[in-house]
């Protein structure tokens, strides 16, 4: 262990009721580096982070921090040592101000009365260090995800963090916001702060990380300098096999128009939206977060009502005022946030998958035909290769990729003509991602039509037949699959 080693993990193992989550994992992180930690869902990244942040305790193994053996029993222990974790689900109090959040638990006070002057000044100083401008008096609720993340980082810094662990920080950021985050990380890195950076987006590791550690099935696979790696290397290390086709686009003959949208408007969300979607087509929708893409999807699915404009399905104008109207027209939606809108985590895989199709599975008196249901669900589970011990398993216990497949299975089971996908592979590992892409391909091959919203440009470019770029609520450009490039799309979207 060298002097420049900040964190050394030696032989860490952890089991959960007999299931191996981490098996004898050892590696070191040097002072001042940005270390990426990657692996498929279920590889043990989250468990490792939870051990480092004191949420779980390892069954065996030792952790050295700053060349001292440490015992992380509670989150407080980790915090006191200078290990801060920015979780995917941010831990802020939305109703309080930025500075109150940053100094929560350590608010400066004079005999119990908060000294706001000092509080705001100190918060201001922290943000100066970060190089970002956020009003200390702003209420957190009014901030976007990107800014909230900065608040979390500021909080970590103000607590004197030496090591900041970031769990998929860019999963809900737009490209521009991600760049801002990277520059903040770089700034802090130059002042000596060390990062462990977890992400499924391998492209961005090349921009931000110095080195990368790969876990697979709870075991340590390798640590490499990022400069020695290519995307393909990393993918291979993660899955232990070669994935040749990350975006297995299938050639499909386009058929009749199924969905035609004419001049759709919703004040404050999007305007003058017109496009046609054909059978067998994947129409990609690109744009920054806040460009109105999700709002458009919600409107087409009847979550919100348009102010004006027309929607035609198979040439017939239809009124869609609630999701049931959309479903009856053969339009289904895989929503943006699987935990919030896609799944009932407390219900089983079976009950989630069949939830949108119950009306077709019922017999007399509203009884569910349980044989029909089990057959349909089993069929979907095996077709989508959902990894679950049984269809009775609670969906909350599955990994992210498998949860996303459950959402997809639910919508595909409803046998829609048009499938709207909003960020279909967000927070999903490469293996599951390739499978989801394969399923989307199979769906259009059978004559389905897909409207795919995605913030991941490689996905948009790899999967789409045509690409619409949205900016500030409008469609600003349309590209054919051959003419589009990352640069062209980004320049339109900005």
């Amino acid at each position: 262990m060298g002097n420049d080693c900040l964190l050394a993990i030696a032989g860490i193992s952890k089991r959960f009721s007999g299931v191996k989550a981490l098996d004898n994992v050892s590696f070191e992180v040097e002072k001042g580096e940005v270390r990426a930690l990657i692996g498929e869902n279920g590889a043990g990244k989250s468990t490792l982070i939870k051990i480092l942040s004191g949420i779980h305790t390892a069954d065996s193994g030792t952790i050295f921090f700053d060349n001292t053996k440490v015992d992380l029993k509670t989150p407080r222990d980790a915090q006191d040592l200078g290990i801060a974790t920015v979780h995917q689900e941010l831990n802020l109090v939305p109703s309080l101000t930025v500075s109150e959040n940053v100094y929560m638990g350590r608010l400066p006070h004079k005999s119990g009365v908060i000294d706001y002057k000092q509080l705001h000044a100190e918060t201001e100083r922290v943000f100066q260090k970060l190089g970002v401008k956020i009003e200390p008096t702003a209420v957190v609720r009014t901030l976007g995800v990107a800014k909230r993340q900065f608040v979390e980082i500021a909080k970590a810094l103000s607590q004197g963090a030496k090591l900041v662990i970031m769990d998929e920080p860019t999963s809900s950021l737009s490209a521009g916001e991600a760049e801002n985050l990277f520059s903040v990380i770089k700034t802090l890195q130059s002042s000596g702060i060390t990062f462990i950076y977890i992400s499924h987006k391998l492209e961005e590791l090349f921009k931000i990380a110095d080195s990368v550690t790969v876990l697979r099935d709870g075991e340590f696979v390798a640590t490499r300098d990022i400069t020695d790696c290519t995307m393909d290397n990393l993918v291979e290390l993660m899955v232990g096999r070669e994935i040749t086709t990350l975006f297995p686009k299938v050639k499909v003959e386009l058929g009749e128009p199924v969905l035609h949208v004419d001049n759709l408007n919703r004040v404050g969300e999007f305007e003058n939206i017109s496009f046609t979607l054909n059978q067998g087509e994947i129409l990609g929708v690109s744009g920054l977060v806040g460009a109105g893409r999700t709002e458009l999807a919600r409107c087409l699915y009847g979550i919100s009502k348009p102010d004006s404009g027309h929607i035609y399905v198979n040439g017939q104008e239809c009124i869609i005022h609630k999701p049931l109207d959309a479903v009856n027209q053969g339009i289904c939606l895989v929503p943006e946030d699987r935990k919030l809108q896609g799944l009932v985590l407390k219900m089983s895989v079976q009950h989630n998958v069949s939830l949108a199709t119950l009306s077709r599975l019922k017999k007399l008196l509203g009884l569910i035909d349980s044989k029909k249901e089990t057959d349909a669900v089993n069929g979907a589970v095996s077709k989508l290769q959902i990894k679950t011990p049984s269809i009775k398993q609670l969906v909350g216990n599955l990994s992210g990729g498998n949860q996303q497949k459950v959402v997809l299975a639910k919508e595909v089971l409803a046998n829609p003509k048009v499938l709207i996908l909003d960020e279909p592979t967000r927070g999903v590992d490469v293996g599951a991602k390739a499978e989801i892409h394969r399923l989307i391909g199979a769906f259009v091959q059978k004559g389905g039509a897909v409207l795919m919203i995605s913030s991941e440009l490689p996905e948009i470019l790899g999967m789409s037949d045509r690409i619409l770029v949205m900016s500030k609520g409008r469609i600003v450009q349309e590209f054919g699959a051959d003419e589009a490039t990352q640069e062209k799309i980004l320049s339109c979207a900005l």
Partner: protein
Amino acid sequence: MEKSFLQKYGIVLVLLLICAVLSFLSPVFLTAPNLINVIRQISINGILAIGMTLIIITGGIDLSVGSQVALTGAVVAGLLSSGTSIALAIIVGLAAGALIGFINGTIITKGGVPPFIVTLGMLTAARGITLIYTGGRPIYNLGSTFRFFGAGYVGGIPVPVIILGIILIISHFVAKHTVFGREVYAVGGNPEAAVYSGVNKNKRLVQVYTFMGFLSAITGIVLTSRLGSADPTAGTGFELDAIAAVVIGGTSMFGGEGAVTGTMIGALIIGVINNGLNLLNVSSYYQQVIKGVIVVGAVLMDGYARNKQKKPAKVS
């Protein structure tokens, strides 16, 4: 991971344990007449608690059930004492109950007012209407035939117990095997995801509150029949016993989880303890304290069991 043994059957073990202790302490406890008596005593609370289970599964609450019982009982008694036929009086009573529930559900969904507030208002309002309707005095002279529903027997089994049994079986079946039941769980588990899946959330909520009103009316009829009169102050505090049974039975106050069968065990636990403490001549003051401790204790235990099983669930 499916539910662990402890989580699934823990509450049954608690019931058996209490029964075992009581059968030691009192020779009368484990006799057929006493046990039938226990079940008859819990039938009122049991019927209400079944409806309350569905409501709590949706993530809601109904504080107005006690007042609903009083109002529907008074309506039926009023009709009977003015010479209306039993069948018609019961039908009107059931309709009145369903209507109160429908109003609760409609205000909750259309008005966007939290169930706690809406049903708190209904608790007061329905009680007030009952007092106005009866002039604050009990209604007597309901005829001897009507006593059948609360005090009659069929094949040695009290009629209220039979009614409870039928409602239990139907409700369990509806909750577990119908589209309605499945969607109720989904609405409670994640309302947003339910809506995104095409579930008509508001319709389901209105139906659940309407069903609660219907069950309150059945309770009102049984109670009025049993007492031989409709007292405008009847049913006070019934909502608390019903909620206690639901909670002891393992239904989560956060919604999305629970079962009417568990609630029935919860109602039995309350009933057995009441009965046992009476047999042991414990003063009713102490009984209240003990009941309170048991409600909180049961939920504590339940939370402990859940946490124990939740932690290892996330492996990623």
